[in-house]
């Protein structure tokens, strides 16, 4: 087993991997940029190597600096986490050439599954169902029209090297295809430096369901159930759960077997995920493979009882999987919310800045994978994910209740976060029933009821709601008085003893 691992990442995923290292008696090495000197992942590590300036292009994306840092600290392996260099085949090769181990798949498998068109070919070769369409980049508008007529409208144009919703265009009819093709190409070029686009049948109101895989170097490939990832905003996942409310044992088995075949065909090793679209008739179609650990891996861990990061490290160290397919079963239900530094009241505008207060939920069945702390200033340079908050319970219905309870306990102030948005989602009846598709969040945001009093069921509920609104108004008055008093207290000795302030606050009654 490794004695020392370098974590080539930051934020909550770096913290997650450091925790696994500690649990396995491995010494964790962090890397950091100018903006992250006092970041949580650096504070928790044994050693830390400075990479460079704050922009990721000068720090977390510098493969050579990261490999040098591993050499310098005698780390034997590098865990790339997700994002940054995690799916960069050139980096994977460089790590190998430096005589280090990358905790991830071989570069060849990464390459094959990294391009959407070659991944699609691999899936077809493995006999997996794919969305009808092309496997090769489209050369011209005429070709696009021919294929679209063949498979029928609506169709979807997608960037071959794409991801995150960029370079994607839905085309409803022939008249729109020419302009959509040009725009998809230019977006693809701008975002991925590759103008290649391909075309697929557009599945109406699909669910996005993915299979978690784990494979070792001895040919064992196991699926660990599915994750329901249909709740997305601008093609970015916001809430994920395991299991999916619509997947039964039979469908799980079929999807799992298909995923295992695809991974085997690609010579895949380590943790990976196969994403499928599932239509309303429960037909599933291969979408893409993510050749890394995923943000939403904790829900699978909670339901299967398997630690995926421990397993990743063991597999990379040359050990066989610690379990076989028959050892994997799902127990209960888990739901994850991605807490972003974004303002849901203002179109999810990023909200970096000083975190003045954090209070995390506690009690049964909760898990908070966070990368921040009270007093930390969230930098503007990186992704806005602050924490992944998960709950587990015996059934999905109980997990939804637990999530509502725990989200009410969760406090974060100083910056704006998506917590209020999740509190609203968890109270939505369709969400509670598991009745949603990938268009759910957009529809939810359009129809969200901003006046909860109007939705109260009867007179008693109306009165209770009115009381809450009145108390909120009273709280606002008290808070503005307290804040004004603090401003007066703050001068001229701004650094008054906290005990003195506390004493005065205790004396001052409202």
């Amino acid at each position, binding site marked *: 087993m490794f004695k020392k691992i370098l974590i080539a990442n930051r934020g909550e995923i770096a913290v997650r991997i450091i925790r696994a290292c500690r649990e396995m008696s491995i010494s964790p090495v962090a890397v950091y940029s100018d903006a992250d000197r006092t970041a949580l992942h650096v504070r928790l590590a044994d050693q830390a190597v400075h990479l460079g300036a704050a922009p990721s292009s000068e720090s977390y994306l510098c493969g050579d600096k990261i490999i040098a840092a591993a050499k310098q600290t005698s780390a034997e392996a590098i865990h790339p986490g997700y994002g940054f260099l995690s799916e960069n085949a050139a980096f994977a090769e460089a790590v190998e050439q430096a005589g280090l181990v990358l905790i991830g798949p071989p570069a060849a498998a990464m390459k094959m599954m990294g391009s959407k068109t070659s991944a699609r070919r691999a899936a077809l070769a493995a006999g997996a169902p794919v969305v009808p369409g092309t496997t090769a980049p489209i050369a011209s508008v005429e070709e696009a029209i021919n294929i679209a007529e063949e498979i029928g409208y609506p169709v979807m144009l997608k960037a071959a090297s794409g991801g995150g919703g960029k370079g994607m265009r839905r085309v409803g009819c022939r008249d729109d295809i020419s302009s959509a093709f040009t725009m998809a190409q230019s977006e693809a070029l701008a975002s991925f430096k590759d103008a290649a686009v391909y075309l697929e049948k557009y599945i109406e109101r699909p669910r996005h369901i993915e299979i978690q895989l784990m494979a070792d170097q001895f040919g064992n490939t196991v699926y660990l159930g599915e994750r329901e990832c249909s709740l997305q905003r601008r093609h970015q996942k916001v809430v994920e759960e395991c299991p999916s409310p619509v997947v039964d044992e039979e469908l799980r088995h079929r999807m799992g077997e298909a995923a295992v075949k695809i991974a085997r065909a690609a010579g895949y090793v380590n943790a990976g995920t196969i994403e499928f679209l599932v239509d309303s008739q429960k037909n599933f179609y291969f979408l893409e493979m993510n050749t890394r650990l995923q943000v939403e891996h904790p829900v699978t861990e909670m339901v299967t009882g398997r630690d995926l990061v421990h397993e990743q490290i063991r597999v990379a160290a040359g050990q066989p999987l610690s379990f076989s397919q028959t050892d994997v079963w799902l127990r209960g239900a888990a739901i994850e919310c991605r807490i972003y*530094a*974004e*303002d849901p*009241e*203002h179109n999810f*505008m*990023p*909200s*970096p*800045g000083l975190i003045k*207060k954090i209070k995390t939920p506690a009690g049964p069945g909760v898990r908070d994978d966070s990368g921040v702390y009270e007093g930390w200033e969230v930098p*503007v*340079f*990186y*992704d*806005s994910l602050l924490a992944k908050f998960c709950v587990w319970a015996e059934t999905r219905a109980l997990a939804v209740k637990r999530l*509502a309870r725990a*989200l*009410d306990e969760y*406090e974060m*102030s100083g910056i*704006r976060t998506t917590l*209020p948005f999740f*509190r*609203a989602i968890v*109270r939505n009846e369709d969400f509670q029933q598991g009745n949603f598709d990938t268009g759910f969040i957009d529809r939810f945001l359009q129809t969200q009821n*901003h*006046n*909860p*009093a109007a939705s109260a069921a009867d007179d008693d509920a109306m009165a209770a709601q*009115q*009381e*809450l*609104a*009145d*108390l*909120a*108004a*009273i*709280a*606002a*008055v*008290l*808070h*503005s008085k*307290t*804040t004004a008093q603090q401003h007066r207290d703050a001068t001229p000795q701004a650094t008054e003893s906290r005990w003195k302030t506390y004493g005065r*606050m205790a004396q001052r*009654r*409202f």
Partner: protein
Amino acid sequence: MKYEAEINGQTVHLELEEKDGRMDVVIAERRYAIEVAHPEAGVYQFFVGDKIYEARVVNAPHQAMEIQLRGQPFTVRLIDRKHRRAGAEHSDDSQQQLLAPMPGKVVRVLLNTGDEVKAGQGVVIVEAMKMQNEIKSPKDGHLLEVRVNEGDTVTGNQVLAVVE
């Protein structure tokens, strides 16, 4: 003391009397006798009869407060009667500033000083946290000045441009 507040878009009038650590409040003929505690910053605990409520208050943009009570969100803005008249005059002002909503980097300047602009039209794109945000004009008019250039780093609430 009398107060006026806007709560979730509706205006309410509060009359608040404090004595001996108790508070009597009247809101539109609804009367409350409340005891209040302040266990930690931003948290107000109300004892209403035998019921307990905890209001968590967070300051939001534009002088609003976001309040969470039993899991429900309320957006409250106190209306300052003394300043209301002055405020009204101010909003008549024909000049309006476009402010950076957060710290970040100017990645594109879409319009130049003197250009005509329509309400809702993008003027500047600011990038923060790997997201690009179009800062739009609040009104029809023309740009009196654009104060930033591509590549500039801006702080939250920095004036990006002025529309007239």
